[in-house]
């Protein structure tokens, strides 16, 4: 039995699904939020491609060819646009590394001989006064 191509087996994309993933470039909003004339024409263009049987990725490619890459709500994970995903991840890792180095350095300094000692526990009269205060406030 011949295997059907994956694209042929996949259900056709819905206008609603695509509207949520592409922009109305003039309006600067998602297409699903736009009721402008340009948004309406873009929507009609998508509907024609759906009727023609195009897949979601084919429709997005066609939209980019017509309106430019800014029509995509999310940048593509390739080429220069990949930096939109890489830079936040690298920044996060750098922040974690900086935090880890900072904590390690702080602990090393704290354990170093001659570093400022922790405050000593109260003794003598001060200790008695503290005990009395604690008893008075039932702490």
């Amino acid at each position, binding site marked *: 039995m011949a295997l059907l191509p994956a694209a042929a087996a996949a259900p056709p994309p819905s206008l609603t699904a695509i509207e949520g993933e592409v922009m109305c470039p003039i309006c600067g909003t998602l297409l699903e939020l736009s009721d402008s*004339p*340009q948004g*309406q*024409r873009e929507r009609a*263009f998508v509907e024609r491609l759906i009727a023609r049987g195009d897949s979601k990725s084919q429709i997005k490619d066609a939209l980019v060819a017509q309106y430019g890459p*800014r029509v995509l709500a999310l940048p593509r994970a390739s080429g220069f646009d990949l930096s939109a995903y890489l830079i936040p991840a690298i920044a996060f890792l750098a922040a974690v590394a900086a935090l880890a180095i900072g904590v390690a350095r702080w602990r090393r300094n704290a354990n170093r001989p001659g570093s400022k000692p922790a405050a000593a526990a109260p003794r003598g009269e001060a200790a008695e006064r503290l005990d009395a205060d604690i008893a008075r406030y039932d702490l």
Partner: protein
Amino acid sequence: MSARSIAALLAVLAVVGLLTFGLLSKGSAKIAVGDPVPDKALPVLGGSGKGKIADYRGRWVLVNLWASWCPPCRREAPLLQRFWRRWSRRGLTVLGIDVQDNAPDALAFVRRYGLTYPQLRSVGEERSAAFGSTGVPENFLVDPRGRLALIWRGPVDEAFLRSRIVPVVQGGSS
């Protein structure tokens, strides 16, 4: 300079570089009368090959930025067609640049209004940004040397063409 200072300086430069890139990529150009017209080879709408404003050097060019979804462009297109027919033999070309549009709609627009003046097509917002455009339609009169003689950020009508474009072209000066 310590390694820590160099790292901090590099981090600051990276942030400033990213911010600058963001501002430059979003910003629109500011153009003025007397400036060279922003020009770039663009695909011919509905045809093969590319064209640019400089192809008409030696003639006056009325560059019209338009889109099929724009209602004022529908009112303006027949006027521009008549103007083009009247003036094409007298040294003026109307050149349409379809922007922020899709090609099938743009071609349907050209057929519907019987437009025969040359048409180019710009994908995305790059050309609009180059002209400092704030919307469509916008019109730019370019002198025979390729310099902007008039900038009109809106639709033209018969009176405008007669009173603002014709005298400049007939006078041969900007």
